[in-house]
């Protein structure tokens, strides 16, 4: 899992496998975003889930949000080598959002 002072996690899986990454946040939030950052690039928003949603899907991505435990998860089904990246969650905290430390995912062909 990731948030704040937690260390960057690293996962290595085979192409075609499913993977789930977890994130916990420390403050009340109304929306959680998941970003993907590929090597040498800036982060890119891949899915956003609001506090009134328990689950959100976008293609092979599925995000969940549990406001009672202040946690979110991102699942990727049927991973591809191109999914190799660092995945960050972010949660809004008042006037701006804060990012987790990220999960480094390597998908081996």
């Amino acid at each position, binding site marked *: 899992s990731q948030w704040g002072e937690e260390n960057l996690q690293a996962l290595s899986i085979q192409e075609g496998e499913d993977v789930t990454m977890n994130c916990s946040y420390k403050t009340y939030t109304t929306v959680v*975003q998941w970003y993907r950052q590929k090597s040498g690039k800036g982060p890119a928003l891949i899915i956003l889930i609001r506090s009134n949603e328990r689950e959100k899907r976008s293609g092979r991505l599925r995000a969940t949000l549990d406001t009672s435990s202040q946690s979110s998860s991102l699942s990727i089904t049927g991973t591809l080598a191109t999914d190799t990246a660092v995945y960050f969650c972010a949660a809004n905290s008042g006037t701006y959002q804060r990012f987790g430390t990220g999960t480094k995912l390597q998908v081996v062909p």
Partner: protein
Amino acid sequence: EAAVTQSPRNKVTVTGGNVTLSCRQTNSHNYMYWYRQDTGHGLRLIHYSYGAGNLQIGDVPDGYKATRTTQEDFFLLLELASPSQTSLYFCASSDGGRRFEQYFGPGTRLTVL
């Protein structure tokens, strides 16, 4: 698609030097942000702005100034650079109505010797 550009892409300076990092967005977004990214810390917000002439502090503002000259342009200034400011810097923008959907630039790698 949203476009955020940063310059320079790489910069090396010495301790005590002055550095200006530039960011331009062509999205007509009113919010712009400066982050630094360091291993083990993720992305940390330095400064942000919700319009020309406006400046707000983030979580790690010490040692940094910023200026928003137009809706498109946001600058980060390091007036007395220190080695602790060696980092990867990202600029981002977002629309006020969708403030937490941020579009990031490609980053500037700054090394302070």
